[in-house]
């Protein structure tokens, strides 16, 4: 019995190390990259803020009973002052706002990566009817205006961040699935996949053991960039009051600042603070995404960062990868021909 447990423990330990080791070495690579270090530091600070918010925040940001401390200017006791309407401490709100942004961003980013990978791989590898159906769904999703639909759906099912995450995932996987699909179409004809097919491997085995690792670099990079994009979008929805009405988020802080007279009374810090929060979160995730791309796909080093995002969104990026692949193949065949 004891031996058995020990064996299970060992097995689990090995599996866990198998997962953690690449993550660890990856973070180490990010740290060694001059641009990645900044992003990594900011993200770590944000994660610490989100987890230990009650310890870091000097006041309770949900406390709306401080009638005497309304609309204070920044001082040592209130680092960013207090709100004009309810006297909440803005610095504490800023710290707590990290939670919503990070949770919505990261959960959506990872879910989109899952959805996009599954759909893209099925569409690309299986082909035929599943491919047609998935690509038609993608085309329909692309023309439906996202923001109005989000407003309608929150009206139907109630306002919550779960709903927002659901809608982001529902609409976010389409672009990624397209990109993954076109990459899978190339991988499908790679020799190692052909070899696995000839050896009698099942479709699922090939899809998850051979194709998935081939597209993983794109998935990892895309997850970080989606997180960044989702954070901006989440701030916008929260600003319109479509998030959870009880939670504190940066977008909602901006809306409260606008509605609470921050503009009128000249309390610029009330507007700047959540804006800087959004900026730092989005910027650091974007940085990490771009650095990841440089690490995972060194061929792309030359062209500029924002254009890469732009192109990823337009599925142009992948075409460039293909062009490079074709070029490499052509060179190879040329060489082979010359040698022969």
């Amino acid at each position, binding site marked *: 019995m004891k031996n058995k447990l020990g064996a299970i423990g060992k097995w689990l330990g090995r599996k866990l190390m198998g997962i953690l080791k690449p993550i660890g070495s990856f973070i180490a690579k990010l740290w060694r990259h001059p641009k990645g270090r900044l992003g990594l530091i900011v993200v770590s600070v944000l994660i610490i803020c989100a987890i230990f918010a009650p310890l870091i925040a000097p006041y309770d940001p949900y406390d709306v009973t401080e009638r005497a401390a309304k609309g204070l200017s920044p001082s040592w006791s209130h680092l960013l002052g207090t709100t004009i309407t309810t006297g909440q401490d803005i610095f504490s709100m800023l710290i707590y706002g990290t939670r919503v942004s990070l949770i919505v961003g990261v959960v959506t980013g990872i879910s989109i990566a899952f959805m996009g990978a599954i759909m893209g791989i099925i569409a690309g590898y299986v082909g035929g009817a599943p491919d047609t159906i998935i690509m038609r769904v993608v085309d329909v999703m692309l023309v439906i205006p996202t923001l109005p639909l989000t407003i309608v759906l929150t009206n139907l099912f109630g306002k919550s961040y779960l709903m927002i995450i659901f809608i982001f995932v529902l609409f976010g996987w389409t672009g990624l699935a397209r990109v993954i699909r076109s990459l899978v179409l190339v991988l499908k004809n790679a020799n190692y996949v052909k070899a696995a097919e000839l050896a009698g491997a099942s479709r699922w085995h090939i899809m998850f053991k051979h194709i998935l690792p081939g597209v993983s670099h794109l998935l990892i990079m895309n997850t970080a960039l989606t997180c*960044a994009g989702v954070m901006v979008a989440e701030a916008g929805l929260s600003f319109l009051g479509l998030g959870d009405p009880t939670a504190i988020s940066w977008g909602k802080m901006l809306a409260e600042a606008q509605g609470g007279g921050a503009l009128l009374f*000249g309390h610029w810090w009330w507007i700047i603070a959540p804006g800087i929060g959004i900026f730092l979160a989005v910027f650091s995730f974007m940085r990490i995404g771009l650095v990841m791309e440089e690490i995972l796909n060194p061929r792309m080093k030359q062209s500029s960062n924002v254009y890469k995002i732009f192109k990823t969104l337009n599925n142009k990026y992948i075409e460039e990868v293909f062009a490079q692949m074709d070029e490499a193949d052509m060179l190879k065949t040329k060489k082979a021909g010359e040698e022969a």
Partner: protein
Amino acid sequence: MKKSYLIKRIIYAVFIFLIVMTLNFFIPRIGVSDPAERYYPPQGNMSEVEYEIIKQYTREQYGFDVSPFEQYLNYVNGLLHGDLGTSFRSGNPKVSELIGERLPWTLVLSVTNLIISLFIGLIIGTIAAWKRGRWQDTTLLNLSTISTALPAFFIALILSFYFGFELELFPAYTNPNMVAQFDWSFEAIRVVMYNAALPIISMSIGGIIGYGQGTRNAVIAVTNEDFILTARAKGLSRNQVIFKHTLRNAMLPIVTSLGMSISGLIGGAVIIEQIFNWNGMGTLFLEANNTNDYPLMMGIMLFMSSFAIVANLVTELFYSMLDPRVTVGERR
């Protein structure tokens, strides 16, 4: 452009429209057995008998007293006659009329924004590509990283704060009389431009930098191509190379992103419109949402989707005209 390609794209666009239309019909009916409950949710102070009467009235007024299939047929029939439905607002105005009233005001913002972004973006991008690696180029690169991380509505709030409230140069809120009193006189147009300045600036900062960066990369990508070298080698002047060879090919990625911006022309400014109290489609949609006005909401949604479908179609056709390789690839 091949005719078969054109017909294929048009049929496909119609097919997408049919799906979107059907979805649009079903969305208000999700989760309720009777759509009247969605149109008039029960209020706390209402007795059941009263609510039943109201529901009965709603059913009759909005044609819910027939079977769902007939409702769908009626809906499609209405759409064929250009009828998007009737709003809940007092006087029961047609949804299409309300959209017609607000659409120009949204277009004032978004079209001006698009033109400014495209024009200045193209110039900046070409300069950056020209001065590749110098300070002009790196500044644009850094700005584009920053502007992607700053939401447009945050920029709008800052602008409204600084120029609207502190300096009082521009109005921070649009005067609602502006729409009612508009009469195409010079003075009225001036007032509109004065009011639209801040929203347009806050929208176009990101657009200018985005288009600038896009142009820069497109131009540089094309300059590296062999045919540019050939053109230079055969003795064409610099200007000829730029205008005849480089820019035409650099237009391709720009047209793609332009198509994306065009499909977002009428739905893209909801938050900006809300901040500046601009009476456009975005505010109309938010008003509809606040009053639970489903016919209006779904009408706007359908309108926006159709607009996006048409814009995508036009972009694709235009693209295939610029780059005939697309039509060839389609046949494979």
